[in-house]
């Protein structure tokens, strides 16, 4: 389907791309710092997958008339980013990053499964592709959460991280700009529907680890360009080299 209005699609594509590029950058911060070699490699690999997905979403935006992917990632300021605040939070300790990744992967798994049926065909094709890769991220999250949940120390740290991160994770489901129109056009499912599927996917995994989902109100704003100061700091690091010479050929 190609007769969809680009103006309606763009905020959605920016939210998908920006979530991925920012969490990808955060996960790359574990490269060389993981508690185990395998943990280090896992976060580094997931970062690589996420940056690949971001690049593909930015390429779709480029086809809709936006600048090239590198310029979208490296030349926009924080207020132009449409990522949820969840992904911009500093990496914290490993329990924090693991729980964030678990909540994020569960959401992405449900989102991609639904977007695979999007009436915006290029997005549906990308979602089908990425869903195959994401199943390994979910396997990673599930395995580690279940293992760490078996000991009091691990379970305590995970529960503490869960309490911190949960309101931000709910922010992943902040309704998109033009939400009603996008849903009516069959481009995406309703966020409320995704949130419900996410909860159903997460609950048994967390329960098996002895963790409980806290009750909390969502922290919204990211999809409208409202961010914590952490995003500007992250972008400063991430964009520094590119901004020093945007026309350089690598």
């Amino acid at each position: 389907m190609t007769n969809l209005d680009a103006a309606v699609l763009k905020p959605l594509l920016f939210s998908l791309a920006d979530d991925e590029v920012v969490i990808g950058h955060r996960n790359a911060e574990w490269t060389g710092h993981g508690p185990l070699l395998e943990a280090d490699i896992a976060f580094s690999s997931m970062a690589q997958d996420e940056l690949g997905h971001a690049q593909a979403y930015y390429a779709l935006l480029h086809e809709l008339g936006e600048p090239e992917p590198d310029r979208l990632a490296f030349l926009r300021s924080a207020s132009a980013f449409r990522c949820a605040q969840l992904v911009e939070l500093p990496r914290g300790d490993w329990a924090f990053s693991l729980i964030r990744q678990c909540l994020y992967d569960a959401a992405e798994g449900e989102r991609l499964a639904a977007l695979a049926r999007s009436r915006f065909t290029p997005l549906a094709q990308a979602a089908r592709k990425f869903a195959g890769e994401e199943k390994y991220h979910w396997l990673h999250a599930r395995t580690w959460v279940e293992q760490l949940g078996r000991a009091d120390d691990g379970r305590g740290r995970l529960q503490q991280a869960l309490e911190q991160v949960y309101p931000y994770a709910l922010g992943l489901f902040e309704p998109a700009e033009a939400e009603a129109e996008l849903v009516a056009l069959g481009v995406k499912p309703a966020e409320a529907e995704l949130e419900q599927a996410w909860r159903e996917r997460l609950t048994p995994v967390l329960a098996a680890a002895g963790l409980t989902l806290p009750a909390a109100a969502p922290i919204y704003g990211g999809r409208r360009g409202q961010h914590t100061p952490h995003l500007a700091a992250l972008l400063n690091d991430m964009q520094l080299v590119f901004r020093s010479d945007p026309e350089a050929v690598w």
Partner: protein
Amino acid sequence: MKARAALTPEQVLAALDDVKDPEIPVLSIVEMGLVARVEVDAGVVRVWLTPTFAGCPAVSVMQADAERRLRDLGAVEAVVALTYDPPWNSNRISPDGRRKLRDFGLAPPPRHAGLGDVVSLLVAECPFCGSSDTRLESAFGPTLCRALYYCHACRQAFEQFKPL
């Protein structure tokens, strides 16, 4: 002098068989099942590659190598683009490709029906001794497309090309 006669899709595929994956240099992009579509219009050749993993850093290298090879073949114009239609899956690796992976010391991915469940990741046959008495150590390895295993029979670590 290079031929400027119209190329056939068969000639194009044969030429692409010379283009290797820089991360697994024993395998060609044809054996990997990366070639999704070939269109030849007189001397203009268009090829679409379907990447194994979206974040694979070798893709742009293979694109450039393929374009160079097609120009060497005599294409007036060669464009190698990417597509996710169809999405690559590990069943696309050819029988020759699977054999070459094993000879390279990488267990080929188990065949699956459909997208495959992560359960298929738990099954790996040691490429060194052939034993199935193996254990998944990590779903992530030295490249996005490889997972790490340990073989209890010959007590060696090995890698498997991930089922996707």
